């Protein structure tokens, strides 16, 4: 019903080294992922991902194996230090296919996403009215997405 990991893939008519540059270079990442990106491309290296609408999020490079595997741990909370339970792992795998590349992305760790103590306190205090308002906002957003 609800998986802990999701997987998507696409076949690209360009060799793995070209796809690798698109997937890992900040100026490209700022086109396909966030609005701005800073990447220290080595295992343990810091990433800063900024969405103008949502703010800046930290990520940490996990695997750099050009042009095969790029993985990073993506913090799903703003203003949070890297830590367990607040990030998902994104693994991008490039496989040569003919003259092109098969690119697969796996995002995992949804089950481990948990709550900071501050968030737990906030939820404990939250009244049902607060839930309803926020639910309506999200529903409106989801409906908008479905129409486009």
């Amino acid at each position, binding site marked *: *019903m*609800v*998986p*802990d990991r*999701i997987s*998507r*893939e*696409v076949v*690209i*008519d*360009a*060799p793995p080294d*070209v*796809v690798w*540059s*698109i*997937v890992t270079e900040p100026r*490209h990442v700022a*086109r*396909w*992922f966030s609005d701005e990106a800073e990447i220290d491309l080595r295992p343990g290296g810091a990433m800063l991902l900024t*969405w103008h*609408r*949502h703010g800046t*999020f930290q990520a940490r490079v996990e695997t750099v194996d050009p042009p095969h595997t790029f993985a990073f741990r993506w913090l*799903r*909370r*703003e203003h949070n230090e890297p830590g367990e339970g607040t990030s998902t792992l994104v693994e991008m795998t490039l496989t040569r296919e003919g003259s092109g*590349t098969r*690119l697969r*992305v796996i*995002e995992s760790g*949804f*089950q*481990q*996403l*948990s*709550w900071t103590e501050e*968030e*737990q306190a906030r*939820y*404990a205090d939250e009244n049902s009215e607060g*839930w309803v308002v*926020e*639910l309506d*906002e*999200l*529903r409106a*957003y*989801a409906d908008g*997405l479905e129409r486009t």
Partner: protein
Amino acid sequence: MTAEGEHADQLWAALADPTRQRLVDLILAADGATATALARDVPITRQGIAKHLAILERVGLVEASRAGREVRFTVRRDRLDLASRYMARVLDQWDQRLATIKHLAETEHDAQR
């Protein structure tokens, strides 16, 4: 990511646990159940069930109501629906990102040829 997304990904986290999925399925099938009734169908202690129910209640996936001396839990279908919409949205976002990567890579490759 957004405040809404944060709450929705907690729904996902709550449901990605197999035991909690099972509890939600059982409560749905019975159209409401008590912890005692659930303990008959799930091989964990009542305390364990209570802990999982508390997590499901905290994210708003189930709600509790008094039924005599017991507490009866029902599933909030609107929240369950929200969780699946959020999942669909995450998948859709990756499809869009991969499509953009494909476009950027093929454009770059054409320019190099």
